[in-house]
């Protein structure tokens, strides 16, 4: 809402020294969001005067038509001015800036020679004067303005004014009007306010244009007035067009301007019809299914049964409260006018505007609640203006349809605002402030408050408390030191997420936060099988870009894109990680999507069953951690060669994360997209699959344009949380000496190292020496001649230590032999050199 200070002053007795900046500050403190102050005309310097074009000489031989004009600017001699516009004629009144003047943007005017003629000033366009976006050509003043050559145009056109631009919050619909802002301003400055809607017109017995309301819930108020004999040529007066302009509304015709002007002033949307185009009585009703109409913006719209329509015998003429139709539009020949002022259901208008994506000044106000006692006054003001400015005759009679509206009264303890604010205002202040906003108040300790008709937002005690507190000043609310509460700190899951992030960062991974939007083609790019559950993703109804309509079921595509972006920017040796949610839709046992959540009431708390029904409709959203790495893991340098990132680094990243949860991952070979089928590990704790790691499938690398041999890991962190909650038991540290036994085992190449190690452990265990085995460590892997064709040699160090004695050679040798025997048994291991 744009609010010219000059308009505001008409209804608020502001002291002259109060500036727009002062007004803005006070309104902001009162809760009106003043976004900008436009200082119109602040950068204009006169002389800027009205001129009459006496003579025009067309100059030829230039690229565009040029006119050399003689202009009467009130001096004895006419002014000689060269002008590039052609939209004016001899005798027209124009605006001239004379030498010495300055236009917005620091454009200084002097007398100079141009196109071979002296030009002593300039004939101005609307835009040059900062008046508006006026179309091509210079501003020609309508004769109705009654301007005289030489008259100060700055004053005539009210070029200097300050305009506040106020963003209206949804609860303060009444401030979408000069009336509402003026009331707030008057309260803020404690000065008198003159209500432009103060005196409603006397009730008339007779009806005006015939109308009926079929659905009173849709339309609680419906007022029609009529005029005849409007002069179609009558132009809007300068004060009206200028105020419209300052509010960002274009002047169209007197009838339309009057409706817009009163909407801005009072907040009541009005509609004007050409009486001659209406056919028969008006009926306000909901649309029938299949009904269509063409709105003023030349769009053919198919209507919804919930849309409220204004209809006549021909069918729909308006989408009520939103936009008029083409068939009954006021045009340049209209003389008989019907004015409509109504009150429509805010919710219904909001839905209609949203449904048709048709947001008008009218729907904006109806959605936010229009004063239901304003219609008769607004319609009366409209016909009076048409009579006064357009020579129309006001027809007697007034159609006035009213559905009963339940009055709102709120009971509030007089100290309720004190309890909300945490300070003492006292009853008198509370009552005074409530009356300031227009409430009727009665009672002592308990107040009965009837909010004014223009404040449909006031429904609850806290709404009234806010009015008192804001008018008394939020800045006066004291601060009370926070009370101390017994919190339990972070949950194990929360700590695990932080620790996992820190550990990966310490290991060289940089965190990214990718968007969760993914493309339909990502499933193929990831080489996912057709029935892979990761292909079943939630789809957005309104994605930002059509090619990324899905919500991720895996973190990897986002990490791949971030990796490719870094590589593209010259960082080829890079490791990234992300911790975030993935979204896995739920399905019924028969594979159908689960039903949508129930829409629960809000006038009571939900039951456990109702909450469970909502949860059942939500997708699973586990926390995952993913990482990708490419290029050199250890960089080459003066110390020697580098080492490329490989599958083992990806598995190590998984171990780092699992280590933060205090568990060891069991690693097994797996084939799982998007990993290389021969370089992919499934990672488990016991029976629980935690995730996968390894080198990516070459086709995935190609599809995402990644560096060769890019590696990745993805874990479901949520599945590690139970272990993170565990209390780690302290180990017993023994100071008896360690006894080590080295064994080299030859096994077929296909035998995984993890199985060999498991066999060695099992052997020690069977030997009854599990307590003595401190660690097993693979220290060498050899393939070659000495291991034999198709074999590999794995060399392990077994460390033994007892808690209570020094072990004998016999004890450790026995345990080692048992381990080797078990490995021979399970995986056909042969002791090398044995």
């Amino acid at each position, binding site marked *: 809402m744009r609010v010219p200070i000059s308009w505001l002053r008409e209804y608020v007795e502001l002291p002259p020294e109060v500036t727009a900046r002062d007004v803005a500050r006070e309104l902001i403190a009162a809760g009106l969001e003043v976004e900008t102050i436009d200082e119109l005309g602040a950068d204009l310097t006169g002389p800027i005067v009205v001129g009459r074009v006496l003579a025009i000489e067309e100059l030829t031989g230039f690229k565009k038509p040029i006119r050399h004009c003689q202009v009467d600017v009130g001096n004895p001699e006419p002014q000689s001015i060269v002008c590039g516009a052609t939209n004016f004629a001899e005798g027209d009144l124009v605006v001239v800036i004379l030498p010495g003047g300055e236009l917005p943007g620091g454009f200084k005017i002097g007398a100079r020679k141009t196109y071979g003629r002296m030009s002593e000033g300039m004939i101005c366009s609307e835009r040059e004067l900062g008046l508006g976006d006026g179309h091509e050509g210079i501003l020609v003043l309508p004769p109705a303005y009654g301007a005289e050559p030489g008259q100060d145009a700055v004053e005539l056109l009210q070029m200097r004014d300050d305009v506040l631009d106020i963003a209206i919050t949804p609860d303060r619909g009444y401030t979408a009007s000069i009336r509402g802002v003026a009331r707030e301003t008057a309260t803020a400055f404690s000065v008198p306010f003159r209500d432009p809607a103060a005196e409603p017109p006397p009730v008339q017995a007779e009806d005006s244009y015939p109308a009926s309301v079929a659905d009173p819930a849709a339309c609680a108020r419906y007022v029609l007035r009529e005029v005849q004999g409007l002069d179609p040529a009558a132009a809007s007066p300068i004060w009206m067009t200028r105020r419209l302009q300052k509010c960002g509304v274009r002047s169209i015709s007197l009838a339309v301007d009057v409706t817009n002007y009163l909407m801005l002033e009072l907040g009541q949307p009005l509609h004007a019809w050409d009486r001659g185009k209406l056919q028969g009585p008006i009926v306000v009703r909901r649309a029938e299914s299949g009904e269509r109409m063409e709105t003023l913006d030349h769009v053919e719209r198919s209507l919804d049964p919930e849309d409220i329509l204004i209809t006549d015998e021909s069918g729909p003429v308006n989408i009520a409260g939103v936009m008029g139709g083409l068939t009954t539009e006021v045009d340049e020949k209209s003389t008989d006018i019907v004015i409509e002022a109504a009150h429509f259901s805010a919710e219904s208008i909001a839905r209609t505007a949203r449904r048709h994506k048709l947001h008008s000044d009218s729907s904006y106000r109806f*959605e936010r609640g229009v004063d239901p006692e304003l219609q008769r006054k607004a319609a009366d003001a409209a016909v009076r203006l048409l009579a006064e400015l357009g020579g129309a005759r006001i027809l007697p009679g007034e159609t006035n349809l009213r559905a009963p509206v339940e009055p709102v009264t709120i009971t509030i303890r007089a100290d309720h605002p004190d309890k909300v604010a945490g300070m003492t205002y006292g009853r008198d202040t509370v009552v005074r402030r409530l009356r300031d906003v227009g409430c009727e108040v009665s009672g002592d300790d308990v107040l009965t408050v009837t909010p004014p008709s223009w404040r449909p937002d006031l429904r609850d005690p806290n709404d009234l408390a806010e009015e008192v507190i804001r008018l008394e000043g939020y800045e006066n609310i004291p601060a009370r030191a926070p009370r101390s509460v017994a919190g339990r700190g972070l949950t194990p899951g929360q700590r695990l997420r932080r620790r996992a992030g820190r550990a990966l960062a310490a290991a060289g991974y940089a965190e990214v936060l*990718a968007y969760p939007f993914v493309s339909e083609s990502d499933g193929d790019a990831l080489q996912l099988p057709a029935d892979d559950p990761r292909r079943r993703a939630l789809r957005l109804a309104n994605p930002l870009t059509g090619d990324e309509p899905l919500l991720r079921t895996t973190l990897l595509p986002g990490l791949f894109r971030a990796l490719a972006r870094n590589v593209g920017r010259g960082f080829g040796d890079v490791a990234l990680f992300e911790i975030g949610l993935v979204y896995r839709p739920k399905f019924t046992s028969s594979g159908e999507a689960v039903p949508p959540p129930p829409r629960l009431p809000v006038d009571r708390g939900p039951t456990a069953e109702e909450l469970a029904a909502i949860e059942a409709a939500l997708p699973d959203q586990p926390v995952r951690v993913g990482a990708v790495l490419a290029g050199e893991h250890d960089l080459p340098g003066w110390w020697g060669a580098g080492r490329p990132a490989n599958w083992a680094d990806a598995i190590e990243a998984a171990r780092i994360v699992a280590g933060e949860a205090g568990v060891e991952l069991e690693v097994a070979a797996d084939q799982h997209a998007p990993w290389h089928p021969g370089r992919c590990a499934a990672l488990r704790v016991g029976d629980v699959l935690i995730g996968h790691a390894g080198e990516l499938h070459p086709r995935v690398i190609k599809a995402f344009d990644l560096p060769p041999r890019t590696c990745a890991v993805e874990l479901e962190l949520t599945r590690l949380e139970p272990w993170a909650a565990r209390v780690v038991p302290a180990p017993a540290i023994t100071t008896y000496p360690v006894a080590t036994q080295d064994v080299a085992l030859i096994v077929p190449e296909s035998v995984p190292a993890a199985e060999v190690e498991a066999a060695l452990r099992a052997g020690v265990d069977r030997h009854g020496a599990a307590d003595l085995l401190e660690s097993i460590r693979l220290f060498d892997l050899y393939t070659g001649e000495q291991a034999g064709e198709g074999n590999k040699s794995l060399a392990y160090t077994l460390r033994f230590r007892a808690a209570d004695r020094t072990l004998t050679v016999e004890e450790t040798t026995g345990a080692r032999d048992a381990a080797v025997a078990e490995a021979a048994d399970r995986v056909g291991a042969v002791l090398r050199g044995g």
Partner: protein
Amino acid sequence: MSAPNKSYDPVEVTALHPDEVARVRADALAAIDAASSLEELKQVRLAHAGDRSPLALANREIGALPPHAKADAGKRVGGARRDVSEALKRRQAELEDERDQRVLVEEAVDVTLPWDRATRGARHPLTTIAERMTDVFVSMGFEIVEGPEVEAEWFNFDALNFPPAHPAREMQDTFFVESEESGLVLRTHTSPVQIRALLGRELPVYVVCAGKTFRTDELDATHSPVFHQMEGLVVDEGITMADLRGAIGAFVTGMFGEGLRTRFRPYYFPFTEPSAEVDMECFVCRGASAEPGGEPCRTCRSEGWIELGGCGMVNPRVLVACGVDPERYSGWAFGLGVERTLMFRHGVEDMHDMVEGDVRFTRAFGMEI
């Protein structure tokens, strides 16, 4: 070797003669001084302090002396041996020092050689600043709560007093999960977590939440369709706006330092009533840039104040929708944008830097901020 003999004349034993002892001592000290390496000193030690050295041999003769002569000779020889031993120790130390200085010099390296063998990792500054922000509340005894990002409309809107078709819903451009009737949205704010906390916890509730939120804004320098919010919620008996101001003051102190004022402006949120937007005094210029003649301030654009976030008293309608008795309980809520906070606290100029995952940006912030 002579046996003890009472009639034996000690003077006859040459080795114990004072002149001889003095000579041997002088020889030893000269040799010690002359030793130029630890190896030479080792030989000198053998020759002059070893078992077969003259002084060791002389020492053995003392036992054969008559008792009256023993003390005198013992003193003489013992003194000489002590002198030799000390000289050896001193020379040993000198030679070791010389050796150490030489060897350690030889072993010197160029410590300015770069050791950039491993690439550096880092946590995302949005993660770390969100943790820092929540931890200010955790230190006041609040607990961290979480909720899903794909959320039921009832949690995201209805229970927070956004009536259907109310213009307030239009304030937050919402991503809907297909189809329109799914009843699921990408949460437009972290406030549904308030509802979850009120439904899932015993009263009183002192919680804080930080997380991803979504609105259909195109990515530009100051907007992102995916962003983060942090918000705190208190519901207890007797909670007032004064408590809210106090908590926000404590938060500002925890994040930005002591002595910064805060300012409330009336505003509208459906889930709080009364509602306010809250500004904090600029932590860089402390308002000086807005004074006449003040130096311009980039952080607050010379306004002296920085818009921090939104807050208010929990709307009793929200309490009702959560089954909480609004006659008995009241509460406050306070929320702010994590991206915005990072931008003004650290001078981040462009939202793109926070969403693209460029390692240069992330690494600059390290592990904690």
